[in-house]
């Protein structure tokens, strides 16, 4: 049925919605050409209305195998066009999955015009509905973190994972490297661990419930933070973060690392602008923003982008090797 996406500055985009549900959220665009199932299930997108710049969506359907969490996380998905799938694994259609979970799929939108708008004006809130209504304040990390601590793996060393909305692929990569994982709710203080992992997740890092937890424990153990986790480490150690104009969401930015340039998977609206005691190790080649850091003497590292990919390039899976190396030292 016909619907509108109304931005907070009253700009309207018309399209068709699969549901009559009204939703509001921060409107963000992702420029990846493949990987909508991974993005839609990425808890970092919680509360957001996701726009795909890739105009042909749905081509390979949906498979649980690709999902990064147990549900669709976005408030709504805005696309140019959705298709019937033709893929050996994607046995369910995207349309069906979204409908089952009550998430509106908006099609027929000039997504390039919408993206240009967001690029020029900066990320804005928007409403799928007749008129703009601001999204309610939500504790996004609380919505996506695990309700109860759980354990995975049977390795010699245990990593405490502070789950702010961790992507499944991150857990898989850590397990693959022989580590045991104790996954904690974001507001719970971990106990009995050899290393700390602070996960990705949604929202403003300054709202994260685990900053003080990290401040209390990071000095003692090897620590890795990814995305929100990277920002939390910066905040916990006296640094600062800021909101990017329209964020980095896609799979094509070059990042300069100590080992040369890598192409990265990105999904963040905030970035680190100071982190005392840390060396800047990774720089975004597009805007020179902080993409990674390393403590000058402690075994603590953070990366802003997503070395676990899913979706996106696998150039940086070595980050997990580096972390495993620190843990096993």
């Amino acid at each position, binding site marked *: 049925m016909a619907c509108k996406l109304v931005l907070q500055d009253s700009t309207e985009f018309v399209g068709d919605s699969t549901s009559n549900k009204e939703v509001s959220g921060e409107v963000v*665009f992702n*420029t*990846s*050409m*493949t*990987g909508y*199932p*991974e993005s839609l299930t990425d808890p970092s997108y919680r509360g957001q209305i996701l726009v795909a*710049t*890739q*105009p*042909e969506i749905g*081509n*390979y359907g949906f*498979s649980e*195998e*690709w999902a990064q969490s147990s549900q669709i996380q976005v408030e709504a998905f805005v696309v*140019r*066009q959705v*298709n*019937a*799938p*033709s*893929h*050996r*694994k*994607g046995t369910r259609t995207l349309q069906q999955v979204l409908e089952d979970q009550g998430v509106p799929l908006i099609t027929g939108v*000039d*997504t*390039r*015009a919408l*993206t*240009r708008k967001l*690029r020029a004006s900066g990320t804005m809130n928007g409403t799928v509905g007749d008129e703009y209504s601001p999204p309610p304040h939500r504790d996004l990390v609380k919505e996506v973190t695990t309700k109860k601590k759980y354990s995975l793996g049977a390795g010699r060393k245990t990593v405490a994972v502070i789950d702010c909305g961790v992507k499944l692929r991150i857990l898989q990569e850590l397990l693959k490297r022989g580590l045991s994982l104790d996954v904690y709710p974001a507001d719970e203080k971990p106990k009995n661990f050899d290393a700390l992992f602070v996960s990705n997740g949604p929202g403003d890092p300054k709202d994260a419930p685990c900053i003080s937890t990290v401040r209390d424990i990071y000095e003692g153990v090897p620590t890795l933070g990814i995305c929100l986790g990277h920002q939390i480490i910066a905040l916990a150690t006296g640094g600062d973060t800021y909101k990017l104009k329209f964020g980095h969401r*896609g*799979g*094509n*930015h*070059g990042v*300069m690392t100590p080992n*040369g*340039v890598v*192409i990265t998977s990105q999904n963040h609206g905030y970035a680190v602008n100071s982190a005392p005691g840390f060396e800047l190790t990774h720089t975004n*080649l*597009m805007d020179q923003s902080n993409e990674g850091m390393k403590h000058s003497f402690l075994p603590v590292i953070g990366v802003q982008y997503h070395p676990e*990919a*899913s*979706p*996106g*390039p*696998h*150039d940086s899976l070595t980050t997990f090797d580096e972390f495993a190396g620190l843990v096993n030292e």
Partner: protein
Amino acid sequence: MNKVAVIGSGPIVIGQSAEFDYSGTQCLKALREEGVKTVLINSNPATIMTDPDMSDKVYIEPITPYYVKKVLEKEMPDGLIATMGGQTGLNVSLELAESGVLDELGIKLLGTSVGAIRKAEDREEFRELMNEIHEPIPLSETVTNVENAVQFAKDTNYPVIVRPAYTLGGTGGGIARNEEELRAIAANGIRASRINQVLLEESLLGWGEFEYEVMRDASNTTVIVCSMENIDPMGVHTGESVVVAPVQTLSDEDNQALRNSALKIIRALGIEGGCNVQFALNYETGDYRVIEVNPRVSRSSALASKATGYPIARVAAKIALGKRLHEIPNSITQKTPAAFEPTLDYVITKIPKWPFEKFKRIDRTIGTQMKSTGEVMAIGRTFEESFSKALASLEMKPVEFDEELLKFPNDMRIHALFNSGKSVEELHALTGINKWFLEKLARVKSVPAKSFKIVDTCAAEFDAVTPYYYSTADEENESEPLGNSVVVLGSGANRIGQGVEFDYSCVHAALAIREQGLKSIMVNCNPETVSTDYDVSDKLFFEPLTLEHVLNICKHEQPRGVIVQFGGQTSLNLAKGIEDAGFKVLGTSSQAIDDADDREKFTQLLNRLDIPQPEYGTAFSAEEALRVAKRIGYPVIVRPSYVIGGRAMQVVYSDEDLEEYMEEAVKVSPEHPVLVDRFLQGAKEAEVDAVCDGEDVIIGEVMEHIELAGIHSGDSSCVLPPQTLSEKEVETIRDYTRKIALESGTVGLINVQFVINNKVYVIEANPRASRTVPFVAKSTGLALAKLATKVILGKKLKELGAEEKKAEFVCVKRPVFPFLKISGSDPLLGPEMKSTGEVMGRADTYHAAFYKALVASGVEFPAQGSAILSVCGEDKPLIVNFARRLCNLGYKLFATPGTHAFLGAEGVESSVVEKVSDGNPNIVDLIRGGSVAFVVNSLSSAKQSFEDAFAIRRAAIENSVFLASSMQEVVVLGEMLNKPFSSEVAPL
């Protein structure tokens, strides 16, 4: 690096087209941007890269180790870039590197190393490397003889794919379904390979085919520029496939698996520059195989550059100079570096263009060997939009549905699919095409465009500064009208009769418009060309050349006018519609263009000027044609009206043949009459390109055809200045040209064609850019197309100070033909154009220039061997000199009985060889035997022993034996062999 040499790709042939003009031109620009002096070597005059402005030194010389070495010795550059000139440039560079010439001269091979090229190109080394890095490749074996091939197939089962090593466009390859086919294909492939080696592979028929374009710099930064998916599953050469970008049916998991593999391979090879990796992926299992790697820029990289806006050749050139990807700016955003991966927010469709309508009795099947001459590309926000625009770009009439077309890959299959009315399941069962595409094809329809959007490499994430646009039905328009603009219409897909020569003129038009202080707007849909490089014009619209799309652009831009005379028939066809819509066609009016094509009106014009033409008549029926022929006398040349590239033209010698022709020709064009002209046998032909401003005329040098009248001007070799015409004849030709240009209302370019038979006759005049404009420009230094553009924009020749120029050197143009690639085609030349491109030989004497043109067109003269002579009665005297010379040089002569007797009487010894119909061993067996250096074969005017002659010609082509294209060529060859000449090289 102070000075760098770049090698081009030579003439346009199937498998190596205008894409290398695009990459070479970008490379030269990039090198000069870095302050490096450039030396260019290319034998193809119809290219932008050979323009004197493009390079510090331009050598139009054959691309052979001998001539390239001469240029290198003369110029002593510090480095050489081998990867811009297709397989031709690569092979020559490899030979020079391996024979030690480059080391000897202290020249460094820049970019990708010889070792890396070898690993990628040599089947065996590549296979070893893939095994080493655990990348899956098809089961395969390299063989050098047919028996081993048969053994491999016994072990792995049919079908088996045969791929020869070191050839372009898959020459000599194929799919063998049984032992008989395998024996034939393998034998052919072994011959076609430079190292007599073919690879046999397990068949991956039905698997999806994918291509990844990769860039790597010396610091190991590696990026994927573009991913592409072939709609046609494996079994069809990627150059023959309908291709979309980005990949559409792969999940991120699949896509990353192929990306990882591509990165791993390019790193293992150590490529420094651009590279293309092809994959097969089994849609049912997700398994993939690495098919091949091109360690250089390619047709695919040109497509990828146009598809993404990422200029691969330009970046590769900078990498060759040692730059790192993160140090090279992305020229589209100018703020971000080239160390990123372009992301598309639109869909690209590429469809090849095949030349099959030019050939009778040929096989329209497409497979692992390239047969297409060009391609179109279209951009749309959705697959449906993109595909619909690509179809429009092909300039084809709607195809009637025929179920047979769905049963095997052929040039019409995509059209048949598109309106078959069958279910997706049925179509999938018939074609193996992924259902995603079949579902989408069923929904393709043309929707009017509402807006223009930018190709920006980044899906709008960053602001773009480049003016590269496409139209779409989406809402938001991103284009601002330029103002003070002039639109140049391009020529669409490369095809026989309309090739890179027209693109050359279009590029010159765009440059001249800028020189005049106006803004240039280019419209074209050919991804291979320089004209669709976004830095050639002030604005590029990558759009189909249809009236609808062109008028959309005109309505939006409100240009001062449109230039239609440079894009061949494609753009001329739009002239009237543009005028009818109220826009101005600049230069020669559409009325004047039409009048020149209208035989009646043209005759009236010639009569007014008292200029003679051969007798002719117009016929609407077979009876009428017979009456005309009776009146003017046989032989006659017959053709439907309104043609380009000589389609359906023929010389006819008898009533019987004429009746047969009329049946076919009338089918070709029922609404237009057929012209019947007196054919002046034994007459010479000449042509002229000129620029007229309505008051004055500037004439390019007169070109004399080497062949006699009767061969299409595009297929004739020609020489400039004229060699056998009298001064008076040349003066008459110039005089007629001037008069016709002025009388016809030409403002801009005109091409006039003549036959000379004691008297000078005019055969036709076309007030537009011709195929020979670049040849004349390169020969004389007179930039006709730019001059014409300025005149079209209103300048007078006097005002421009334009002067006619004489060529300092003798220049010979020689066409090249696709007979080897188009199996079953007849290499006999006639009024129907068949050549795909041309080379230029340039030297201080006619014979030296002629020799260079032969060598540049790929003719090899074995120092020993035999020659076969089989010519008809009237041609026999013409070969005596040639035969005697060959004899003296130690060649063994074979001749058919009649020719043998004639030569004997002239005191030239030869052995008799039987005609094909007279049993074995015969001429064809001899040619297949492999020791033959020359074949001279002519048809008598009455088509006797046609099948015999056809078999001889095919055998010569298939065995890469020099087949003289005409008796005149044989005469010049005889003279050439008689006189010593120098083989010096000189820059333009």
